[in-house]
């Protein structure tokens, strides 16, 4: 108990230095938590992707459409249990800076995506009306929308004013499920295209196939693509995860650098705490010599220095973790709505931060411990700091 008290008192001996070190660690933990949250949120769509869904798109790019006629051909391939399709609608709702996915979808979209939980009565009403739409709970929350409200979108890919009546609000089954998307009938879009721009009618953005055995995803993907080989619209099929990964690959350099930076921060904290511990142990060289003289062994000295280092690093991390949640919440307000389907601190980020704190506490004390243990008692008494 007395040893713990000595560790505590040593840690607070230079209050300003200890406070600055604790603050430095806390700020670094906040920065680490924030960067990791951005990185994990960026990959949120990839992580949430199902293993039993394949995405088939135009082989050159997903911005080029595929014929509607492909649906039945894909559905006929063994192993494919259901096929849905979507078109990226784009458009603007209220403000250009506010983003959420708007999709013209086939009517079986909620069968293919069972993680979107929609009350049956809402689904039935949605099916009965042509200009009805389903929105995610996050959109309803962000824009204060409810069932029965009308959403008017300014079309850009598909020009014009588009009115949709909200007939359902889906909720996510899992924490990683995106509840920031809007779905409406593909037929509604297609009908208008037939009238206004017939060449763009009967086209599909991409197909989503549900497969009965995820282990066969590679084989089924090959079979789908083989089906359309040498056609004007060759396809590229891949798992939903690979598709989502490709979606964010253009930003991969930024994400990677953020990822690297988040871990560099750990190195910086280590240097800050290491510097504090080196200064502290240098100043106490004579005291450690006294303790050794009194019979304290190397183990005791290790315990004192390691304990002090761990105390400061854990205190800093604790303060950082206390503030990282409100900081992340505040940061979320400054990013466009819907930019990230989910923006919250993942448990892995917490685990990494706590593990980093423990590692830093140990690593920062290594050099001072080695120095003190290697200093002979008589040298310690002669030391002038």
């Amino acid at each position, binding site marked *: 108990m007395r040893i713990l008290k000595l560790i505590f008192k040593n840690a607070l001996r230079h209050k300003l230095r200890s406070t600055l070190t604790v603050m430095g660690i806390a700020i670094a933990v906040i920065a680490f938590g924030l960067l990791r949250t951005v990185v994990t949120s960026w990959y949120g769509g990839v992580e949430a992707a199902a293993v039993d869904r394949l995405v088939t798109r135009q082989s050159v790019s997903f911005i080029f459409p595929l014929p509607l006629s492909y649906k039945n051909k894909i559905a006929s391939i063994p192993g494919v249990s259901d096929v849905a399709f979507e078109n990226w609608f784009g458009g603007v709702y209220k403000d250009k800076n506010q983003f959420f996915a708007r999709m013209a979808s086939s009517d079986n979209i909620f069968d293919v995506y069972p993680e979107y939980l929609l009350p049956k009565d809402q689904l039935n009403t949605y099916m009965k009306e042509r200009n009805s739409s389903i929105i995610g709970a996050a959109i309803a929350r962000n824009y204060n929308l409810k069932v029965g409200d009308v959403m008017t979108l300014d079309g850009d890919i598909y020009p014009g004013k588009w009115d949709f009546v909200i007939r359902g609000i889906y909720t996510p089954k899992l924490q990683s499920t995106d509840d920031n998307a809007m779905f409406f009938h593909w037929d509604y879009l297609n009908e208008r295209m037939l009238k206004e721009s017939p060449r763009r009618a009967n086209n599909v953005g991409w197909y989503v196939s549900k497969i009965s055995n995820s282990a066969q995803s590679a084989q089924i993907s090959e079979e789908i693509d083989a089906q359309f080989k040498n056609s004007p619209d060759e396809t590229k099929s891949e798992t939903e995860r690979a598709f989502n990964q490709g979606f964010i690959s253009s930003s991969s350099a930024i994400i990677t650098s953020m990822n690297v930076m988040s871990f560099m921060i750990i190195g910086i904290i280590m240097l800050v705490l290491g510097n504090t511990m080196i200064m502290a142990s240098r100043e106490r060289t004579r005291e450690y010599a006294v303790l050794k003289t*009194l*019979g304290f*062994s190397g183990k005791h000295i290790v315990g004192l220095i390691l304990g002090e280092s761990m105390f400061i690093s854990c205190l800093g991390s604790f303060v950082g973790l206390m503030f990282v949640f409100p900081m992340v919440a505040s940061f979320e307000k400054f990013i466009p709505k819907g930019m990230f389907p989910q923006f919250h601190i993942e448990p892995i980020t917490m685990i990494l931060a706590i593990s980093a704190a423990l590692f830093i506490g140990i690593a920062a004390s290594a050099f001072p411990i080695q120095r003190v243990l290697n200093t002979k008692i008589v040298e310690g008494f002669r030391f002038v700091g």
Partner: protein
Amino acid sequence: MSAIIQVQNVSKSYWRDSMEIPVLHNITLDLNEGEFLALMGPSGSGKTTLLNLIAGIDRPTKGVLNVAGTNIASLGESALAKWRASNVGFIFQFYNLIPVLTAFENVELPLLLTKLSKAERKKHVESALNIVGLGDRIHHYPKQLSGGQEQRVAIARAIVTDPVILVADEPTGDLDRTSATEILTLMGRLNKEFKKTILMVTHDPHAAESAHSIRHLEKGDLI
């Protein structure tokens, strides 16, 4: 009376790069139990080095060191630390108290290495502080005490484990005359009343007068 400290042909050299710097040459010294010896000599004569060797905080280059029945030159670091904890009490010139601990906590430090209970430790600490006349200063921090009081706390820390030998390196070197006299009187009491064997290094003739005998060191030789 048996010799509690036996120093036989002990030499000590330090090395600076490849150059050997001899400090002590073939020192032979016996100190009986209950004796109070003052080691005198000019700066650099090797007094503190000899004291450090006898106290087990440094090792001889050659020779035999039998202290309190143990050949301490043959002990490993860990065993030597344990031996010091139970056999030697240290009094330093600059007191060397831990500034963030109270007088009570400083004196209690060596007892943390024993198996004594908290209550037993308290009893021992209070007893030691009462012997040095600081029973009313137990919760004071070193910076709240005078130099003489700090040295008395250091003496209490040195005797709290009831060691066989007390070693003191210039115990009055940092004190005014009055405080120095008080400390020397206290050390005399410890020797007479508590039968402590004391080895004191000093260059102050007044301090040396408190001892039973005085030995001089000159350039590493005991004369």
